[in-house]
């Protein structure tokens, strides 16, 4: 069957969500203000670790306009505690109460909540709540947390070591003992936080008449939140509706369940009135999940030609005060150790990982999850080995990549990589940069006394994960499927509904492109709905670079079901064999007889006009719901190359050029792919050079404003040169590979390697990120002092 419409998949289609977002007509949580709504505010702990002796909210309740106050004990009577379970025996399950119960475990933890007639009043009231704290010793870092004499955060766990896992392949000790060269480093990837421009917020409304709960939330995973709220609040799922239409950025930060969502629901149910909480930036920096914060001690053994013989590593992650739902405290430390071997053939491996509780905000998923630190480590080791062996850094990678003939390749941690373009992306990146010329320019710059460096980082990321693998290691919840419901109405227009949710990725556009192609209608006739559990088929949401793979696959299946049925109806109407029909200009015509045709609109009308209009036995209607499970999932890969200059006076790192050659399989919309890479790289550059969450020894957050937690502005980000390879995934419908995170995975390593390359004449290695001007000043001072 021919289709005359131009294929939309692969085209740079302008985004369909843009007109409303450009004109101030978005539908973010804070834009909603139903009648009788109350505003909530939370009292947050000023202590990092303390027992709560008493909470007295009577002075708050005495303020006119204050409707109610809730404490941890009030919530405990109304909702079950959150427990992020794991199937891994060595991962300890701990509780995360919506409001602190008995004790507080980090500064900024929610202790009490007020609902009042205005936000201003709610904040006044919160200040009147009296809490008596009995301070406990503060667990500042992982070293201290693992000391048997240290205070324990979760008494029921009996230890601060909440996660311990090991992955091994072969005799790594023997391999390293026999290696021509072993390079070692203690890498430190400091604590970061995603900083979505929209702070977290939610609006709960409980209808007492029909006992339904509606929660609007700045959530990436409305389905997931619906499921767990139903469980915690003891309400059937079909009476809980979660809506997240427009969300101001997520990056993983909004993928977890948050205490405020539960507390706001409890408050709304108790009062029978809508209750809205909108976090401010201070609350966001204090209580939205932080990221990465790991120490990785790693050793890489290589032969004289640079080929890897073994990798041995230990990861220690500071997972903060709580294990977050549903991903658990294992998500960051286990992902890091799982992905450490990168796109390389690593014959022997032993990776140990630990997740350790401290009195800081909980660690959660952030763009890349585990892989930004993992790639920083493996790519740092590759460069160290190359320098010692005097092999070009691109050459040592080419000698070690998993080769085309090796696919499918099982990594030492058990992940199977399908056909990818590891070698191709590096070769192309060298070409784009004109690598030899760049090296010559570097030599001239060095001769002139400038600190110019070139850094390379290659990576592979697991994306679009299906039901075979838990998205977070050990997580019992299966998230391997998504669905699409596609409906062609009697007027011939298409509504496509998804359980995934878009918060900037442009899924309303990319999914519409796929649906339009599959159904065979113009994109103008397709409307995509998402982010509302009441209208969507069962699904969880958007995270882990899964949405285009899973929802796109479901869209293909449902779209084809609609198209196949349209063809049967068209055949009936035209009294022709459906196989002889061709779709031209919005009409199904008998092949070779363009006069015998019927419009999509007529077919749609017939579909709803009863049995006489339809082939015998065909069910009326044009609607299909299809689920898709990619089972193992797929992978994206890329090579990043950064050219940087370190200012000799200020130690500021300027990124002069930045090249990305990425492969996300078949591209649905190159405009959007580019945008995802740009944004990801900018976050990676921020992570490498500027951003750092800092606590003092008392567990007080020092980076509590955007003056202190420095997000890159336009001046710190260069023009990025993004190029694509398109190796369709052999294992997903449509050949798509997920690609939302990669920019952030490659950039920290590329920048770190470029800075180290710039400072190689001084013998400086970069083992700590962010490599801020202050850290560089110290490194350079020490190196120059040693030289003198």
């Amino acid at each position: 069957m021919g289709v005359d419409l131009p294929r939309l998949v692969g085209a740079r289609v302008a985004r369909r969500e843009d007109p409303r977002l450009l004109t101030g007509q978005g539908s973010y949580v804070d834009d909603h203000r139903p009648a009788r709504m109350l505003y909530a505010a939370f009292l947050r702990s000023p202590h990092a670790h303390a027992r709560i002796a008493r909470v007295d909210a009577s002075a708050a309740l005495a303020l006119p306009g204050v409707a109610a106050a809730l404490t941890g004990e009030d919530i405990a009577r109304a909702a079950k505690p959150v427990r992020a379970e794991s199937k891994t025996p060595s991962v300890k399950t701990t509780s995360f109460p919506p409001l602190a119960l008995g004790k507080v475990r980090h500064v900024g933890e929610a202790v009490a909540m007020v609902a009042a007639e205005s936000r201003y009043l709610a904040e006044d009231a919160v200040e009147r709540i009296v809490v008596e704290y009995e301070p406990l010793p503060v667990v500042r870092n992982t070293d201290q947390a693992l000391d048997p004499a240290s205070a324990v955060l979760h008494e029921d766990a009996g230890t601060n070591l909440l996660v311990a896992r090991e992955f091994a392949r072969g005799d790594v000790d023997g391999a390293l003992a026999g290696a021509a060269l072993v390079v070692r480093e203690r890498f430190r990837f400091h604590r970061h936080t995603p900083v979505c421009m929209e702070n977290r917020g939610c609006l709960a409304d409980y209808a007492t008449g029909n006992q339904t709960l509606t929660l609007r939330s700045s959530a990436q995973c409305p389905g997931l939140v619906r499921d767990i709220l139903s469980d915690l609040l003891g309400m059937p799922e079909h009476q809980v509706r979660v809506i997240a239409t427009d969300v101001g950025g997520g990056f993983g930060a909004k993928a977890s369940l948050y205490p405020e969502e539960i507390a706001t629901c409890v408050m709304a149910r108790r009062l029978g009135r809508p209750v809205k909480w909108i976090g401010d930036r201070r609350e966001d920096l204090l209580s939205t999940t932080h990221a990465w914060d790991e120490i990785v001690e790693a050793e890489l053994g290589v032969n004289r030609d640079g080929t890897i013989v073994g990798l041995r590593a230990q990861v220690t992650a500071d997972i903060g005060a709580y294990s977050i739902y549903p991903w658990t405290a294992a998500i960051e430390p286990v992902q890091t150790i799982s992905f450490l071997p990168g796109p390389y053939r690593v014959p022997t491996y032993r990776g140990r990982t630990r997740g350790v509780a401290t009195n800081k905000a909980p660690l959660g998923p952030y763009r890349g999850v585990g892989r930004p630190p993992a790639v920083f480590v493996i790519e740092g080791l590759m460069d160290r080995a190359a320098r010692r062996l005097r092999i070009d850094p691109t050459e040592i990678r080419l000698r070690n990549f998993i080769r085309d003939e090796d696919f499918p390749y099982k990594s030492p941690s058990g992940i199977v990589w399908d056909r990818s373009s590891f070698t191709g992306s590096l070769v192309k990146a060298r070409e784009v940069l004109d690598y030899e010329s760049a090296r010559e320019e570097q030599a001239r710059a060095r001769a002139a006394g400038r600190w110019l460096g070139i850094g390379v980082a290659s990576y592979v990321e697991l994306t679009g994960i299906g039901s075979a693998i838990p998205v977070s290691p050990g997580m019992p919840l299966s998230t391997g499927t998504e669905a699409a419901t596609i409906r062609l109405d009697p007027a011939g227009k298409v509504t496509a509904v998804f359980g995934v949710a878009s918060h900037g990725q442009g899924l309303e556009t990319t999914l519409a492109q796929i649906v339009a192609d599959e159904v065979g209608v113009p994109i103008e006739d397709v409307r995509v709905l998402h982010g509302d559990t009441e209208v969507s088929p069962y699904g969880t949401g958007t995270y882990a670079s899964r949405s285009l793979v899973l929802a796109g696959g479901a869209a293909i299946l449902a779209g084809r079901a609609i198209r196949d049925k349209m063809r049967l109806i068209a055949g009936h109407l035209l009294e022709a064999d459906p196989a002889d029909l061709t779709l031209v200009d919005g009409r199904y015509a008998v092949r070779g007889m363009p006069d015998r045709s019927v419009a999509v609109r007529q077919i749609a009308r017939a579909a709803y006009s009863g049995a006489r209009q339809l082939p015998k036995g065909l069910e009326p209607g044009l609607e299909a719901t299809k689920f898709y499970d990619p089972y193992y999932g797929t992978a994206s890969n890329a090579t990043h190359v950064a050219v940087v200059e370190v200012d000799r006076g200020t130690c500021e790192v300027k990124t002069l050029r930045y090249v990305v050659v990425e492969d996300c399989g078949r591209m649905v919309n190159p405009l959007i792919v580019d945008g995802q890479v740009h944004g990801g790289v900018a976050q990676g550059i921020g992570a490498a050079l500027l951003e750092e969450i800092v606590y003092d020894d008392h567990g007080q957050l020092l980076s509590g404003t955007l003056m202190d937690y420095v997000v890159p502005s336009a001046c710190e980000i260069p023009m990025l040169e993004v190029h694509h390879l398109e190796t369709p995934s052999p294992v997903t419908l449509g050949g798509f590979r997920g690609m939302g995170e990669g920019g952030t995975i490659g950039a920290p390593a590329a920048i770190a390697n470029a800075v180290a390359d710039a400072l190689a004449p001084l013998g400086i290695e970069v083992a700590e990120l962010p490599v801020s001007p202050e850290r560089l000043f110290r490194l350079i001072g020490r190196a120059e002092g040693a030289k003198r």
Partner: protein
Amino acid sequence: MVTVRLKVNGVAHEGRCEPRKLLVDFIREDLGLTGTHVGCEHGICGACTIMFNGEAARSCIMLAVQADGAELGTVEGLMRDGKLHPLQEAFREHHGLQCGFCTPGMLITALDLLRTNPSPSDREIREGISAVLCRCTGYQGIVNAVRAAAPILASGR
């Protein structure tokens, strides 16, 4: 409670609020113009940027009472006759927005830049829009959009 009289996008409004009410809250809650967003409430992120008597200003670190008698411009006022403003068109064409949360402040800031510098260099565009933080786009689409819109706006004035 105090009375605040002002013009927003050419339309006269009057409201009563507490003297401590932030201008951005007044715009969003009292006037119902939710296009202007609140991102940090300490004057860094720029999501709340509006036109205040013809110049870009952060409405999260001003009080509503300070705007008494002022003329404001917000993102809702950019469309003309149901059509996107050329800068809005350019943002769409060059993928200058993703989640859209910083976008209203970014548009107002870029308009203010182009008002004072009708044909900025890339460096000047970056400096001009550095008053607004965007976490999604890496700024590339925004820089491209502002560069593309500059001659269109210049020819229209």
